[in-house]
């Protein structure tokens, strides 16, 4: 791996510095960012911008293939499902569930995990032991098994999906943040702050949080894909999002019964999942290289 070259004295036109980080426009993952923008537009616009009402039944138009195949028309670009609903419209609206789940799941698991990671790493001692133990025990139950027993106990739906994902992923943040804090707290400026009489809260806010912000941003971006796949899996099993809400996983579960005569039904939502996850992963990789030079070799 090559080491990044020393900063050039003059900033060329093709670089910008939004967060005090200098980066070249050339390396920006434009295509993934474009796809993520489309997903956001679908999620926000929803029913107002879809070509058809995603829930409108039209049995006369059931099982229309995508437009490029014989029998298909540009009216239904990606075809229709067993009840004549437009697949493209459903995918656009389905983006909303993915975005909502990803947003809340990441905010909450990130917040809980970060808080516990900071506490464990900063204070050490018995509190560290307790938090690490709890995390280890939680990780001894495979993710979906935990999700299944939670779903069996709570009523399925959007909130349960978010709770399940937060419960599954907080350890991820806690572990990584804890190890960052362990090294950060040994730095001189933290020691100076302590000597100067700063309390733990001030040290968190002024010295620790700003330093782990980049890591958090990268972790959150890389988590988007995993959360979307997790939600799709739960919804596919029937334990996640419930109809009449539309989700990509739910679309796949519906289309599975008609796999023999409507290939597009299972293909299109899967491609939506793949493109979204691929885009967020690539964006995350790019952010990691940009913000966290130490990990570039990972």
């Amino acid at each position: 791996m090559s080491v990044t070259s020393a900063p050039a004295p003059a900033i060329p036109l093709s670089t910008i510095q939004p967060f005090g980080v200098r980066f070249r426009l050339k390396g920006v993952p434009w295509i993934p960012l474009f796809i993520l923008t489309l997903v956001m537009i679908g999620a926000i616009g929803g029913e107002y911008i879809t070509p058809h009402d995603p829930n409108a039944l039209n049995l006369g138009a059931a099982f229309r293939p995508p437009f490029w195949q014989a029998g298909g028309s540009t009216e239904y670009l990606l075809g229709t499902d067993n009840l004549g609903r437009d697949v493209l419209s459903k995918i656009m609206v389905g983006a909303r569930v993915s975005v909502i789940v990803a947003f809340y799941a990441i905010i909450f698991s990130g917040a809980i995990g970060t808080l516990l990671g900071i506490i464990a790493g900063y204070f050490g001692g018995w509190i560290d032991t307790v938090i690490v133990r709890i995390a280890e025990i939680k990780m001894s139950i495979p993710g979906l098994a935990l999700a299944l027993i939670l779903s069996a106990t709570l009523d399925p739906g959007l909130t349960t999906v978010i709770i399940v994902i937060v419960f599954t992923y907080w350890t991820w943040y806690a572990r990584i943040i804890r190890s960052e804090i362990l090294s950060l707290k040994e730095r001189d400026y933290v020691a100076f702050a302590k000597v100067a009489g700063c309390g733990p809260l001030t040290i968190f806010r002024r010295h620790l949080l700003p330093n782990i912000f980049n890591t958090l941003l990268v972790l959150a971006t890389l988590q988007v894909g995993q959360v979307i796949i997790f939600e799709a899996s739960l919804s596919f099993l029937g334990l996640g999002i419930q109809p009449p809400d539309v989700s990509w996983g739910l679309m796949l579960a519906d289309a599975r019964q008609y796999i023999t005569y409507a290939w597009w039904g299972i293909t299109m939502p899967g491609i939506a999942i793949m493109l979204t996850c691929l885009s967020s992963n690539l964006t995350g990789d790019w952010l990691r290289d940009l913000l966290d030079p130490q990990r570039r070799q990972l």
Partner: protein
Amino acid sequence: MKSVLLKGLANALISIIGASLIIFVISRLSGDPVVLMLPIDAPKSAIDALRANLGLDKPLWQQYLIFLAHAVQGDFGNSYRWQMPALQLVFERLPATIELAVAAFSFSVLLAVPLGVLSAVYQGSWIDQFGRILAMTGQAVPSFWIGLILILVFAVDLGWLPAFGADSPKHVILPAISLGWYPVAAQTRIIRSGMLEVLDSDYIRMGRAVGTPERLLIWKYAFRNALLPLVTIMGVYFAAMLSGAFVVETVFAWPGLGRTVVEAVFSRDYPVVQAGVLVTSIVFILSNFLVDLSYSLIDPRIRR
């Protein structure tokens, strides 16, 4: 060696007890576990009997000890759908899941090892690129969707392989591929970076200098050392497979533990869910323990 074994066993035991604690707490989340554990039309006498059996009038920590005592004796209650003890049902279904996980694991290793080694040896070549693309897409799709696409192509369109059930060895192929797909990406990367590191070491250069055939260097001297990091994280992937099995088994109607638990969630057969999740966790914990143990067996540097 003995201390490694004892320490590992103690850790495994703590994890198992911890997992049982989490499962117990979750069962109490909804308030009244009796509602969860009995069918909706259960007679009043059955409800009262279960209440007394679970010790619901006692403090929570005593209830947990009762739960633990029952669990140790293998008593999770009866599956009211299958009319048999829940644990017995779980053990009947477990072998099929292990069979699937082993097949999936073999698939992933058989694909990842040559791909990882060749990517390292021919760094930057088309095979390296191919491996990278495979890794990227493999982690961006749910395993059940790969399963659906495999069914679409190989069962529906080509008609080569069966899509459902477990009647012949052929039946395991598609589920194993969809379950084994996910870890291929990470395994390839680990082998690739391990190989790159080893190929750069002095003893390989030395071997090259004295004219050892390249094939021998790569597969005998370098590969064995590059395999070590893979062994350490094998437990993680085996766990990912146990987890993925819940969905993949449902897609392929594979008669294993995963599908049984998913079905039990729907029929509100709570004893089966509880027993199934605990047994899955125990299998997971024990496989991690065995991996740790095998690692110290394989690498003499750790044993000392």
